[in-house]
């Protein structure tokens, strides 16, 4: 251990390893158990994110300022107004618009509505910096079905989401607005093609197009309830940008940073489980084979000779393809073909140790075979075994990543390899979605590097000849 921390690479490696472990534990604690299937592979959850958006910090390097996605939710201050026979709840969302482009989309999501007799009405109005305001959209919650008893519950299981940018009613409202305020005749259809948001967040540029109107907008969402016990659980208004978060999004609008974080514990799990089990089997078979000799030795040596020589990736591809894509299967195969290499090495070490004085002495004292093997021979191989374990960890991580990259990853768990694969499959390399391709690969490299650095620091321990030189 002291040797490990005495070298520079050992220190860096140990620091990285601790960081990896801390992140992994954090992720395991913070993420839901079935994250892969329920969350990551569920497009509904990512609908309100812009698609293939680069990270937001790219704004710092570009001359044109891109819009960052803004999400407004009905959790803050609301104004309650009493009206004859109704209650009006008003949410005001303030948006300081400074980007040089129109939003990529705007959307409204309504969830958990319940009412007694008359369906509530939800309306969205945009108040612009030039003092004009547009009544964009009005939602009348669907009425009672025949035979249904109050309270009527709506949008509980699946939230109601409307993409305002593609909504014909919104287009018609904006068309009227342009006609009245700017005397600009434009049909609903043309507006939908040009992009409704261009007009809502802009002024006509006189060329048939729109230019962005910067300034402070207020998006006002009114909810009209007709009964004391009526309620609208959750409202969400989203202005979709073209840059997103720390690491951007993919074609489904998934926040890549979320998926990449999840990759940490998965990668560590694959690497550590495989290397620990492989090393264990390899060490035991190696010691037994070397010490027992005779038939046992021959059988183990022949078997490991053959297994160690089977090219791993083709077999791995074949098995994952035919049997199914399952993380545990992959780990099992990696173990099954991984141990023999170590067996051969340990055996040759044991052959040397066996002829030494220590073993001879303990044998004379009448120690049992298993005692000699594991109390006297094993400790002498231990440093080497430990170093091999660390050194073999990245191999498993890289093998899983390669398999995922060929489209044979476990679909229930997002891994770095899979994120990279989907980036590659979606042509990310040819159109330059670098934020989708570089980070997962970089994380794989960093994780693998961590173990390589640790192994490098252990090399003088394992190979005393090198120690003499340095």
């Amino acid at each position, binding site marked *: 251990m002291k040797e490990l921390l005495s070298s520079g690479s050992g220190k860096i490696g140990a620091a990285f390893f601790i960081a990896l472990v801390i992140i992994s534990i954090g992720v395991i604690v913070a993420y839901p158990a079935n994250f892969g299937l329920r969350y990551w592979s569920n497009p509904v959850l990512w609908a309100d994110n812009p698609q293939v958006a680069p990270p937001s910090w790219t704004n710092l390097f570009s001359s044109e300022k891109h819009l960052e996605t803004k999400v407004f939710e009905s959790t803050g201050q609301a104004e309650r107004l009493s009206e004859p026979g109704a209650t009006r709840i008003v949410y005001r969302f303030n948006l300081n618009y400074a980007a040089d482009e129109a939003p990529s989309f705007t959307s409204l999501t309504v969830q958990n509505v319940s009412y007694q007799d008359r369906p509530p009405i939800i309306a969205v109005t945009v108040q612009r910096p030039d003092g004009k305001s547009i009544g964009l959209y009005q939602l009348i919650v669907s009425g009672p079905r025949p035979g249904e008893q109050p309270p009527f519950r709506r949008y509980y299981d699946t939230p109601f989401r409307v993409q305002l940018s593609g909504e014909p009613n919104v287009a018609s409202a904006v068309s009227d607005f342009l006609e009245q305020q700017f005397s600009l005749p434009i049909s609903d259809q043309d507006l939908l093609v040009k992009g409704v948001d261009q007009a809502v967040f802009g002024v006509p540029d006189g060329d048939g197009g729109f230019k962005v109107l910067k300034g402070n907008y207020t998006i006002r969402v009114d909810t009209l309830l007709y009964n004391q016990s009526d309620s609208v659980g959750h409202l969400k208004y989203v202005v979709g940008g073209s840059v997103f978060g720390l690491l951007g999004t993919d074609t489904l609008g998934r926040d890549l940073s979320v998926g990449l974080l999840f990759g940490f514990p998965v990668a560590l799990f694959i690497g550590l489980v495989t290397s620990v089990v492989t090393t264990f089997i390899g060490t035991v078979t190696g010691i037994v084979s070397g010490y027992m000799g005779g038939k046992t030795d021959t059988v183990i040596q*022949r078997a490991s000779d053959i297994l160690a020589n089977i090219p791993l990736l083709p077999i791995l591809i074949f098995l994952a393809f035919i049997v199914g894509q399952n993380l545990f299967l992959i780990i099992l195969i990696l173990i099954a073909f991984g141990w023999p290499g170590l067996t051969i090495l340990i055996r040759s070490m044991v052959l040397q140790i066996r002829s030494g004085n220590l073993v001879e002495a303990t044998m004379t004292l009448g120690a049992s075979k298993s005692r000699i093997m594991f109390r006297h021979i094993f400790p002498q191989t231990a440093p080497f075994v430990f170093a091999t374990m660390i050194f073999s960890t990245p191999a498993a991580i890289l093998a899983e990543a390669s398999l995922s990259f060929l489209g044979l990853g476990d679909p229930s768990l997002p891994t770095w390899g899979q994120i990279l694969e989907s980036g590659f499959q979606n042509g990310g390399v040819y159109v330059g979605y670098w934020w989708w391709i570089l980070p997962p690969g970089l994380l794989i*490299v960093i994780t693998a590097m961590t173990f390589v650095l640790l192994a490098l620091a252990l090399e003088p321990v394992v190979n005393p000849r090198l120690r003499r030189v340095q």
Partner: protein
Amino acid sequence: MKAARVLAVRGATLFGVLIVSLLLVIVVLGATGVSDRMIDSLVNEQVRGLRQSLAQTIRDPDQLERVVSEQRQQLISFYGLDRPWYTRLPDMVWRVFTLDLGSARTLKSFEGSTRVSDIVLERLPNTIILVTSALVISAVIGLYVGVKLATRVGSRLDRAMSYLSAVSYALPTWWVGILLILVLSFQVRLFPFGGIISAPAPQDPLARALDVIWHAALPVATLVVASVGGWAYAVRTMVLNTAQEDFVTAARAKGLPENVVMRRHIIRVAAPPILTNIVLGLAASLGGAILTETVFNWPGMGRLYFDAIMALDENVVVALTFMFTVLYVVSRFVLEVLYIMLDPRVRY
């Protein structure tokens, strides 16, 4: 005659490797019921051909149907589709061995053939070109750099290189390829995105060769980057180990010039273990080739693997798994022969 014996033992082991991989493939195919499906499609294909040729001679549709279904039954029992899968094992081993795997589901060879053997075999040369040129380049660079490093152990260059080789061990080959495409094809537009030859291929043989080299530059560079660090480091360590032997000190004491000591006394002795290292890395570089071809759309067997996985083409996947094992076993054998030539201790 010890060399022959050693060679025979290694050959037997490698043959065992081939047989075990083959058995593994076939047992998995049988146990999962995939082999039934494959033979079924083989029978269907033959029945289709039979029906066409019989239709020329038998005019009566009922009689034709009867003959065809009779033939079908015969084929089914011939291929053993009516028996459990394990009884067909030897037959199936032979079938894979001769690449007699019927036709691919959707994939086609460049000439349009759907036979699995045609598809796979015409791509074999492309893979071999890629892997061997990468191997030769890495070997040359690795040997040169490794020896250089061993002569100045502990220097800043040596330390930097040992870190670099560690990095190259941790680099996934295909990611390096992607990086090269992103930088040199997408940003700088210096190299093509992939493929082996430009779309209207140049007519002139010289221009053709140059075009292929231009296309091969990035994939080969990828494979070299991924393996050269390991090469250099292995050479360095082996040379270093040998350099500490007494006979080297003795050679120096005799007053031999340093480059003679290096050439005759160190490298000559360090060569076999270096070769062992290469042998161990061979499987990895073949695997690297599969992924590199995928990234660069290089029309070799690796890219075919990826295409077959995407098209769920079982026959092709089986054939490729076998082909890669054969390729590995054959190149391993070549290296074993080399080893025996290099290491006098085995020969005498």
